[in-house]
């Protein structure tokens, strides 16, 4: 079997690029396809010869050995033709699989380099998800198109030429029904596609309704709406049944009708062909000519009825291609962006913010005049009431929030760094654990040769993981339901530590961990982060007294100092701390 040709593609938004990339395999398709379809005439030809030979033997004009020769030639020639067919069928499928591979690869390459912001805008994320399924439709369409060029196009020509050779006048007469079939097909096509659209619509509505009925089952129950929803569902079921029956009948009835119309030519063949055999027609025919002609014509009629399939396949592929094209084009823009060279691991630095102002956009509240310095080995606690801008401040370091002012990493201006350099300095962990459907070990190591156990130990998870039946091989992520929220958060923290950079921004990483556990993990963090700057954003202030400094966000700005300083200098902070210490927040167990 043939393996994949990996690698890239130039101009992925041009359909011809794909055909160009797969030229060698298309070469095989062309050679085998042509030979097969040219050989198609051989079947009817030999079958006619054998019928004639039988006729001659019965009349003692030939000997049985003649039949053996013809029959042997028949098997050998048709065997070769079928071998060509197998070659063509297999290679054209390889072609389609190659295209599907490279399209998926290209789409994903664009996707993984898109920013969170881009993905959120215009629902690009959803679009990309759907695009992946469009790839199948598109590569399938390209396969069918290539196949049908040979199987319908070339085959029709071969049969038609063969018929012409036998008797051109009869052929024109017999084939005059075929255009009728085409005209009718075009008329019917609209009806069929309309019925199909109606069917797809009904199917979509039914599925939507099913999902709605089930996911809101309890909402409907507590509001006493179940009976009415069931009645609506029943109505939709009936509508769906009708639409589906209609679409199926229209689609199914096309082929036999074409076939029947095209076969109308058979009447001509029986009349004029019969005269040919009897010696008073346009051509002198024997039985072999007659049977070959009939067989050829039947096959031509069937191929004709398939021609509509070609148009349908191409049309479907076109629709998918139109949807894919702009997304594949994104890649072109991507390619111009500087390649993400991995810069050397950054050395420990001091972080200095002077008079920094940031806000998501003009409409949202801002944080202004923030200034503080953090040296390697220090932990800065950042807090404030709900919506005071804690998370926004964290996201400033990962290019998700625009800012003004000066941020320095050692002697370098943060603004002057390339994106890759900025990333080499910053470790960030947000609220979401962002785990993948993979083992815990894989989630932490992410392909790097790392022993994950020390990191699991740092986040106080080693004992819990060791107790799991599959240990670090347990699957985490959206389908790994056996892990609690706290465990997931700690795995994410372990992952951050395993790939740690000089400046570590942690946005409430331990919200779902009990305070005692939080304390132990913080101690480990401090021990492991001797040369790191740690910004620890949290709404829970229990461990803030242990931090080197606290940045308290309030009224659109921030006050920085040690915990003790803030307790005396900043009444709002003192009140927040006291309230929590009294345990008013019921969730702070």
């Amino acid at each position, binding site marked *: 079997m*043939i393996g*994949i040709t990996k690698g890239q593609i130039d101009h992925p938004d041009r359909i011809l690029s794909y055909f160009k990339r797969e030229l060698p395999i298309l070469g095989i398709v062309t050679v085998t396809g042509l030979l097969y379809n040219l050989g198609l005439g051989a079947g009817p030809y030999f*079958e006619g010869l*054998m019928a004639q030979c*039988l006729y001659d033997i019965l009349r003692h004009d030939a000997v049985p050995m003649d*039949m053996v020769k013809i*029959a042997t030639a028949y*098997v050998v020639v048709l065997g070769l033709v079928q071998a060509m067919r197998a070659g063509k069928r297999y290679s054209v499928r*390889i072609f389609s*699989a190659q295209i*599907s591979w490279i399209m*998926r*690869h290209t789409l994903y390459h664009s*996707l*993984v380099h898109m920013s*969170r912001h881009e993905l959120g805008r215009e629902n690009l994320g959803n679009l990309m*998800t759907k695009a*992946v399924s469009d790839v199948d439709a598109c590569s399938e369409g390209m396969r069918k198109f290539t196949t049908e060029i040979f199987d319908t196009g070339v085959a029709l020509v071969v049969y038609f030429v063969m018929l012409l050779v036998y008797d051109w006048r009869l052929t024109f007469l017999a084939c005059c029904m075929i255009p009728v079939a085409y005209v009718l097909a075009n008329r019917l096509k609209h009806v069929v596609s309309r019925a199909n659209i109606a069917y797809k619509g009904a199917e979509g509505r039914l*599925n*939507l309704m099913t*999902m*709605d009925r*089930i996911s809101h*089952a*309890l*909402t409907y*129950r*507590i*509001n*006493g709406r179940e009976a*009415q*929803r069931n009645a*609506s*569902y029943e109505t939709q*079921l009936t509508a*769906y049944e009708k639409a589906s029956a209609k679409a199926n009948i229209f689609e199914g*009835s096309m082929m*036999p*009708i074409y*076939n029947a119309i095209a076969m109308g030519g*058979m009447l001509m063949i*029986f*009349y004029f062909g019969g005269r040919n055999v009897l010696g008073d027609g346009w051509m002198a025919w024997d*039985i072999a000519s*007659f*049977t070959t002609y*009939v067989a050829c014509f039947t096959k031509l009629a069937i191929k004709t009825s398939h021609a509509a399939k070609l148009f349908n396949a191409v049309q479907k592929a076109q629709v998918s291609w139109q949807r894919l094209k702009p997304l594949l084009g994104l890649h072109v823009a991507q390619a111009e962006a500087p390649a*993400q060279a*991995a810069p050397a691991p950054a050395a420990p630095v001091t972080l200095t913010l002077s008079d920094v102002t940031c806000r998501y956009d003009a409409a949202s509240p801002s944080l202004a005049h923030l200034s503080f310095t953090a040296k390697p080995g220090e932990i800065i606690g950042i807090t404030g009431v709900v*919506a005071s801008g804690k998370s926004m401040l964290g996201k400033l370091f*990962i290019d998700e929030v625009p800012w003004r002012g000066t941020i320095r990493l050692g002697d370098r201006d943060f603004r002057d760094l390339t994106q*890759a350099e900025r990333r*080499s300095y910053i470790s960030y962990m*947000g609220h979401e654990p*962002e785990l993948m*459907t993979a083992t815990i070990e894989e989630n932490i190591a*992410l*392909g790097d040769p790392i022993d994950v156990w020390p990191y699991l130990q740092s986040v106080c998870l080693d004992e819990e993981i060791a107790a799991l039946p599959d240990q670090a091989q347990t699957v985490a992520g*959206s389908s790994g339901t056996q892990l609690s929220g706290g465990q997931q958060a700690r795995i994410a923290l372990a992952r951050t530590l395993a790939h740690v950079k000089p400046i570590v921004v942690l946005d409430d990483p331990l919200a779902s961990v009990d305070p005692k556990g939080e304390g132990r993990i913080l101690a480990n963090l401090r021990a492991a982060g001797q040369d790191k700057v740690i910004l620890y954003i949290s709404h829970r202030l229990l461990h803030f007294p242990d931090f080197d400094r606290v940045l308290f966000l309030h009224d659109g700005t921030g006050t920085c100092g040690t915990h003790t300083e803030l307790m005396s200098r900043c009444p709002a902070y003192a009140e927040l701390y006291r309230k929590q210490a009294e345990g008013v927040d*019921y969730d702070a167990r």
Partner: protein
Amino acid sequence: MHAKRADYTPVKASVKASLEAHPQAVVVLIALITASVVTSLLPPLVLKEVINSLTAGQAIPFTLAGLYLFLVVVADLFETAQNSAITIFGQKITHGLRSVLCAKLDRLPATYFTTHPAGRITSVFVNDGDTIDTLYSDGVVGMLADSFKLIGILFIIFHECPGLGILLVILTPFLFVLTRHFQRSTLSAQRDNRQAIGRVSNHVPETIRNIRMIHVLGKERYMEDRYDTYISESYTAVNRSNFYDGIYSPIIKTIQTAVVAVMMIAAVSGLELQSLFGLSVGSAVAVIAYVAKIFTPIENIGMELQNIQTAIAGLRHISEFLNEPELVPPAPARPVQEDAAIVFDDVTFGYVPDQPVLQHLSFTIAPGEHVFFLGRSGAGKSTIFRLLLGLYTPQGGSIRLFGRAPETITAREKRQLYGCVEQDFKPVVGTLREQITLFDAAITDTAVWEALRLARLEGVVRGLPKGLDTDMSLSLFSRGQLQLLSIARAIVLSPKVLLLDEITANVDSQTEQDVLQALAAAAEGRTVLSISHRLSTLMKDKRKIHLT
């Protein structure tokens, strides 16, 4: 393979009911299958007569030519009609089954919905429902039609050329085994591909969800490599199935060629064989046509067997769903005359009976009273609401809402007795009007606007070009506005009781003010029960019930 014998009784009952509801459909179906099989077998016989008259040196009679054409057309039409009938038949059965599935939803306990993901239940309706269609149309009925055809062709071949008949009868089992081998290999390759595609499709949304982590850790390359691994796995599996797919049909055609060659040689070879293979020229042409036809039903039957096998899995899912234990209908209870709006009398309840969430809880709430429930998460605050809504029945003690047990309140009365505002708005599929009416046509637009006005959303909705007819979309509203919509839904039928479950938990402080003001208006003159895990100024002078 059959680890557990599933109980298919409910599915069987549903299919039986569908058949009994449409007895004429079954008759028509059988008639069409018979007609289609018979007519499809006739044209080659006419062809034989055509050739025979030619070899006898006679012109082809016009009637014969006409008959041939007529039979071809009729056979085509019957085939179409048969296929349509099979489709319609399958659809009727699926329809019946889906109705039964939907009715089952009403009778499932609330726990079922909280412990089974909606996506999985939906898949029973949608995907497994479709496999039932496949089971009947492309499985059982299709196999019946193809078996008829196979027998018919063999019968005619026996009649025309007994030797070939014997040859084919011997060959058929081998062909069948070969076909099944190919189909099984293809199926296993396809199964591998589906698994790989599952991983491919999962990787994309997962990447989108985790894009920040990927960028922050610089793992773009790693993610791409993983993706390439998945699409390459899919490629390999597809390639395997392509290989079988590519060579199967050519092999069959070659065998077909060989069979015809053997028959023709045998027909002229000598005396003994000739008695078995003796053929007129006409028969030879006709028989060649039949040999070409016999391979199609063999291939189809193999495919249909496979369809049945695959559909069994779907059938099992449906049966499991239909066999889920159902709610016990509430015992009719006489309403108690009392002044209190809500009474919990020594209530003990646990979702799992031996792990009680509430133990011997008693309280009484007077009409018009505003009460706050406080306590840490897991203390049972929301559970109290679920019991009041009649979703669960307590294991001990009694609950009364205006003197009645919650589970005995009829569907019609529910929204007039209580309205519930949950932590998150549950958008149903429909227009804005339907978000509030929940498809109750008896609720007038005037009532809807009044509810929106009280919920302080009237202006927003009036500002939309299509007003109440706007299709619901989460992007129309902010998080806080969604809570206001939830309030409008709860109060549209002016219920006597409002249940508010942490409705400001997920909104920022500014929106919280809007929501609270809307609530103050909506709460007027009603009994209000609120859940909160934060203390706030609202609770001043209000009764608080602490749960531990």
